[in-house]
């Protein structure tokens, strides 16, 4: 049932055009551009999957790195024996199940506590895997069956497209509406028949699924992976920054935020390697001060003006 306005034809054609350009990109761009764009796809996927759960519920999850890292490890373990698409799918599945487990444990925590718990859990897992590899398996890190730049690019493109489409469909479905209701009043939602716990865990699991797929797809870019890179806290923080920067009020916010921030950081990294974080930090502060609702907030206001 059409709960909100359907996607107007103009917007749809813009997205289709972008998709066509994306499909053709490797044929007319140098390899470093392809790699950069692949990174952008990764961050878009992470930002959008983070937003799928955290925007309607108001939670801040800092465990993205864990679910992403699991995807990479699934690739490391199964990449040689199974075809890539299946491995990517399984990476998502593994993260999904862990997501359900984590959700069951900690979704009853509120705001600040949920955020720090997910962060603590993420770091606990990272350090535990590190310790395990150090002491039990003897080697830190694993070799990964790697793929060509083109293979990584198209894998990531498929993942990001599926993620964005799913996010859009959820937003327009009755589940998306129920989640908005849960965000506003959990008690009222329960009393009209919505199983709040199930919805939250389900949504969290979906979010983790895409993070896992992103990990498995991205993993083929590296030939070697260790717990510190796979589960790096930076992978948890960056999508949060990007989503809030782009604005979580609108669907395209995280996509825009991820795109622009990744682009800026790649640009700054190559031009000003010594001042990179300084300039990044200043831009960040200025944007948050003057655009508290993110870029999407500004665009909405200019639309209405």
């Amino acid at each position, binding site marked *: 049932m059409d709960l909100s306005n359907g996607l107007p034809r103009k917007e749809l054609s813009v997205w289709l055009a972008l998709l066509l350009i994306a499909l053709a990109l490797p044929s007319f761009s140098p390899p470093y551009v392809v790699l950069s764009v692949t990174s952008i796809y990764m961050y878009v996927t992470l930002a959008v999957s983070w937003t799928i759960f955290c925007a309607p519920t*108001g939670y*801040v999850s800092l465990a993205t790195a864990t679910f992403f890292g699991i995807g990479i490890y699934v690739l490391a373990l199964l990449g040689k024996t199974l075809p890539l698409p299946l491995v990517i799918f399984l990476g998502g599945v593994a993260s999904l199940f862990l997501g359900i487990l984590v959700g069951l*444990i*900690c979704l009853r*925590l509120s*705001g*600040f*506590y949920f955020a*720090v*718990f997910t*962060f*603590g*859990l993420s*770091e*606990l897992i990272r*350090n*535990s895997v590190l*310790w395990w590899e*150090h*002491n039990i398996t003897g080697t830190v890190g694993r070799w990964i069956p790697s793929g060509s730049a083109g293979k990584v690019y198209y894998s990531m493109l498929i993942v990001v497209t599926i993620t964005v489409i799913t996010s859009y469909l959820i937003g327009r479905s009755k589940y998306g509406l129920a989640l908005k209701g849960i965000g506003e009043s959990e008690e009222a939602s329960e009393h009209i028949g919505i199983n709040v716990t199930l919805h939250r865990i389900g949504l969290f699991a979906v979010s983790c699924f895409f993070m896992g797929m992103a990990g498995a797809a991205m993993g083929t870019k590296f030939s070697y992976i260790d717990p510190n890179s796979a589960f790096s806290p930076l992978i948890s*923080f960056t999508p949060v*920054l990007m989503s*809030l*920067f782009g604005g979580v009020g609108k669907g395209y916010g995280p996509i825009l935020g991820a795109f622009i921030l990744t682009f800026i950081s790649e640009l700054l990294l190559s031009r000003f390697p*010594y*001042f*990179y*974080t*300084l300039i*990044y*930090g*200043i*831009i*960040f*502060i200025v944007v*948050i*001060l003057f655009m*508290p*609702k993110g870029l999407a907030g500004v665009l909405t206001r200019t639309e209405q003006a």
Partner: protein
Amino acid sequence: MRLILDVIISGLIQGAIYGLIAAGLNLQYGVARVLNVAHGEFVMVGAFWTYSMYTIFGCDPLLSVIIFSPISLFIGYLLYKSLFQYIRKSSETAEMFEGNSMLVSFGLLYVIQNLALLWWGTRTMAYSYFCSPLNFLGVTFEANRVLALFIGAAVMAGFYFFLRNARLGKAIRAAAESPTSAELSGIDIHKVLGLCFGLGATLACVAGGLISMMNEISASMGFPYLIIALVVVVLGGLGNILGSFLGGLLLGLVTTVVMYWQPELTLIASYLIFTLVLLVRPQGIFGR
């Protein structure tokens, strides 16, 4: 016996540092509601300031700490008044304020760390101060470590009495409990919150100074201390300053014990305690 004493005292020294840093973060988040992820960077700045003053001017670290305490208080106050108060006024909801102020502090983190890297480079540095061996309660320590313990304890005690008895301290506690009631009873809430933020920064800098006396420092040392501060704040209870001091001591003891037993498990132990406390008693061991 000597080993036990060694572990306990080492743990308390470590814990005193943790307590100071955590209390600082608790003032900033528990009261002023700013989750300052750049808190660790203030520790680093304090450490480097002390280091520079000693190596360049030969200035006694304790004197440095005394000098920069009011400076860091002022800078912290300014930061709050310029950045965070602005965000508070322009945020529609409390969640937006907390989210945006956290993001701004992320920006601060990047800026401060980059500046530190530019100024001091990536190498680790250290200086020797007061490191003759001292026999304390039967165990030998470097004198600077014992000194750090006493100063840390003194600052904690002093601050605790300040909160209890001084007018400003009581205003802070009032603001921590209920900002709106505090405002209604005539307290200039923004001044108090600004001071809280400044005091938090000062505690971090003092801790940094003490750390520099004992350990090596580097431009990237801040972040791990932020994490520890978070763990201790949760252990001690959000908004409970005394809880942060006690929690810090507790964590210091536990991590030191683990370090003597199985050094590789130190971080894991911290995170394990952290997650368990959150699941079992999220308001903290000492929290209400």
